[in-house]
């Protein structure tokens, strides 16, 4: 008995669709071929004759592949980038900024006090808010990777999507700040250079790493999982 699922997967191995959609197309076409084959056998054709007729009915597999890709192209060109990159990126950027604001409002209470001429004053050190926020970022990175991967994104797109929230800060530190230092006479350059590296680490390197700590295992696991799925159904 012929394994039509395997035949379809082999012949349409280069089908340019996200894994999940491709798997559905393979299953559906395999089912069709199997029923056609069964029907021909019921009509009295030999096994070899029936298989030959089924394959003959398909014609050129490359044409079939191209037609399927074209039939879905419009949808994917319109929504692929949105689904794989922009939607996860903006949802999680919004979430990370909202969490930062929430931590500031409801987060750890100030624990450092300073004496002023008017009496004691409570100060929330940046670290209290910042470190708490940093701990939330792996979860946000994981969510972002999951959303991108679910939309069938390539690992490169998933990576870009994971680090998306730090990109505006990176642009600021690499472009806007140096320009400001050059153009603004009032900036104290001796203070700016150490501040530049502290800021770069605090808003780009550490958050980026935290996002990757959560996001990269999800991307890695999802890739392995989809690979296993494909092998299993083969």
């Amino acid at each position, binding site marked *: 008995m012929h394994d039509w699922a395997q035949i379809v997967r082999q012949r349409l191995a280069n089908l340019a669709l996200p894994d999940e959609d491709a798997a*559905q*197309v393979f*299953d*559906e*076409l395999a*089912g*069709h*071929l199997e*029923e*056609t084959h069964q029907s021909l056998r019921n009509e009295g054709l030999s096994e070899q004759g029936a298989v030959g007729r089924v394959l003959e*009915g*398909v*014609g*050129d597999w490359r*044409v*079939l592949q191209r*037609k*399927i890709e*074209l*039939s*879905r192209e*419009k*949808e994917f060109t319109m929504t692929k980038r949105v689904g794989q990159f922009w939607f996860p990126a903006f949802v999680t950027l919004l979430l990370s900024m909202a969490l930062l604001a929430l931590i500031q409002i409801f987060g750890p209470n100030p624990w450092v006090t300073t004496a002023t001429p008017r009496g004691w004053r409570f100060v929330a050190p940046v670290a209290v808010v910042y470190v708490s926020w940093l701990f939330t970022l792996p979860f946000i990175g994981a969510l972002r990777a999951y959303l991108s991967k679910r939309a069938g994104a390539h690992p490169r797109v998933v990576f870009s999507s994971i680090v998306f929230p730090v990109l505006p800060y990176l642009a600021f530190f690499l472009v806007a700040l140096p320009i400001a230092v050059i153009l603004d006479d009032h900036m104290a350059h001796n203070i700016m250079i150490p501040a530049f590296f502290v800021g770069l680490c605090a808003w780009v390197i550490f958050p980026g790493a935290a996002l990757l700590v959560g996001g990269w295992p999800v991307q890695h696991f999802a890739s392995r999982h989809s690979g296993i799925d494909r092998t299993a159904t083969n």
Partner: protein
Amino acid sequence: MIGIGVKKGTAELAILSILEEGPLHGYELARRIERQTRGALSFSLAALYPMLYRMEQRRWIRGAWEASSSGRRRRCYRLTPQGKKKLSPLRAEWSELFHALRRLTKASHA
């Protein structure tokens, strides 16, 4: 020779008309069309599924996986309200075209 546009139009009308009778999976849909048109219209695999996917994208039909009594999973297509809306003008257009052609051929034979 029948042009691609005409073929595509008749195929869409055929699929929508058959699905109006009830949900069907691709294989049965193709068989039903072939049977009901006495073989005048038949779909190859390369014609049927891209057409179904395109119509699904336009939201005229909706596909969903269902298990048959034999346990085999099949993707069944059903007409959506949008597809139903599309069917009436499509029928009217084709009916008008066929009447026009009939009148034309009758006139040329007379």
